[in-house]
């Protein structure tokens, strides 16, 4: 009950912030190809800034090796990508210069050329670097623009992000989810190799939820803003998708292999636990979020108890039915119905 009140209080603070967020959302460009135009324009501006300092041929040939390696692992290693991105852009500029004309962009833009970064990868890079500016600007287009500028791209490249700050939040959420999946897979490996003891389900889930929520700590001050951005109608499908894959991953690594209604009830329960704990966390002021972890413990115990109670109810029900059948059979015997004359 107290938990519910705390959750409601947090909800009220969110609603206050939602009105603040709704105002500065960027207007969506009407045409899809405008995004591609921005992508091309951003890279052209980047190329022009690089023409002033042409790199030496030796450095460009060595960096080409880097970008061939970089392409497949880009999404898993945002840090490495940011580091090699500078070399990437300089060697791109070199190869474009060698081919001679800016019009070569238009031929390459539709294909996934190995030497050419896809729009998806560029967006991921910009959003990753924008995360540094979130404590300063909050989850807004300013943070994305600042991020783009650190990559030596024009701040007009924020036009690529049609959902505005929602793209930044969703990128962060996706990043956290894949980090969590890596951690859980690693733990799973350890258990399978016999190097670690398997945890009980409730403990495992508790640790998984805590690990995932701790990833919010660097951004906890602006997290209510992020949560309300995720609740905007055009972001809801994506945020629900991320939430459902997160919960599915957690249950999968906890060992759930059910293929009946339990699949749904378990995931619904864990979604409830995760969401309420997240709400408690944003308004928690205790030392190292102790109150939040206590709340999480209690909620998980609730679910465990409920599951146990459900089993007991089922067993009792079966016993009662058996008793009634026995009584009916006895009565039939007494009445002589069962005899064959």
């Amino acid at each position, binding site marked *: 009950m107290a938990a519910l009140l705390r959750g409601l209080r947090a909800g009220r603070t969110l609603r206050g912030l939602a009105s603040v967020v709704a105002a500065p959302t960027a207007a969506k460009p009407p045409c899809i190809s405008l995004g591609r135009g921005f992508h091309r324009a951003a890279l052209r501006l980047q190329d022009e800034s690089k023409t002033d300092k042409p790199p030496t041929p030796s450095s460009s040939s060595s960096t080409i090796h880097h970008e061939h390696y970089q392409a497949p692992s880009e999404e898993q290693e945002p840090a490495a990508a940011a580091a090699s991105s500078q070399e990437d852009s300089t060697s791109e500029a070199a190869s474009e210069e060698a081919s001679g004309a800016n019009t070569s962009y238009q031929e390459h*833009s539709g294909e996934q050329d190995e030497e050419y970064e896809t729009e998806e990868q560029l967006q991921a890079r910009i959003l990753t670097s924008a995360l540094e500016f979130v404590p300063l600007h909050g989850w807004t287009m300013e943070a994305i623009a600042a991020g783009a500028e650190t990559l030596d791209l024009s701040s007009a490249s924020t036009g690529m992000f049609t959902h505005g700050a929602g793209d930044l939040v969703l990128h962060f959420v996706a990043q956290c989810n894949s980090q969590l999946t890596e951690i859980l897979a690693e733990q799973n*490996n350890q258990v399978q190799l016999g190097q670690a003891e398997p945890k009980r389900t409730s403990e495992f889930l508790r640790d998984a939820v805590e690990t995932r929520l701790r990833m919010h700590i660097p951004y906890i001050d602006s997290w209510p803003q992020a949560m309300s951005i995720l609740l905007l109608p055009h972001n809801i499908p994506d945020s629900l998708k991320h939430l459902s894959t997160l919960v599915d991953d957690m249950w999968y690594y906890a060992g759930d292999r059910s293929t009946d209604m339990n699949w749904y009830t378990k995931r619904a329960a864990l979604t409830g636990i995760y969401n309420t704990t997240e709400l408690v966390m944003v308004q928690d002021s205790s030392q190292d979020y102790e109150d939040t972890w206590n709340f999480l413990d209690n909620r998980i115990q609730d679910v465990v108890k409920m599951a146990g109670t459900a089993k007991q109810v089922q067993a009792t029900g079966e016993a009662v039915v058996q008793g009634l059948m026995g009584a009916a059979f006895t009565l039939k015997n007494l009445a002589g119905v069962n005899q064959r004359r």
Partner: protein
Amino acid sequence: MQRAAHTALFDWSNVFGSSMIRQCLKCRVPLQLSTRAYGVIPTPRDAEEKDMMDRILRVDHAGEYGANRIYAGQMAVLGRTRTGPLIQHMWDQEKKHLEKFNEILAENRVRPTALLPLWNIAGFVLGASSALLGKEGAMACTVAVEESISEHYNSQIRALMEKDPDRYIELLQVIKEFRDEEMEHHDTGLEHDAESVPGYWLLKNAIQLGCKAAIYVSQRV
């Protein structure tokens, strides 16, 4: 220039729409490689294939679950008569099929259909009520259901063969084996006077219509 714009539009919507899914999908791929080297389903190459596989497996699982419940209903009524052992034998084969699909679903992290409780009740009621029409009624129900299921498996086999028979060879083997057993049940039903039930044509078509609707819905929900 126009063609570039066309490809740009296509790629952009393709890439950006599935970028989120692909990010999530990327986390799953290493897991599947680390659990079993030889599964019935090959690791999906992209979100589209995963979606197609999910639908196929979901509806097959729902079908076997429903068939299980139908036989359970029939046994509840006719279990102690002469046809009891025959129905029991067919039920045991369906149980094996369901077990296999449970295994495949768990391994490939496929969501089971949310309508399972509905198929639970509907299957049992269908089995029990057809059995109340007597042994011929139960056999007619079996014939109708098994014919629907065989047709459904055949169309899946055709679809997978069209796409890539080598890639899906294990899944095709499983489906072919199950389809052969369902055809056996169908023939058994015909042998045991299914056609002599009054209103056979009506009963058969009504049940087959219900099966088609169930298949359509289970793929999506």
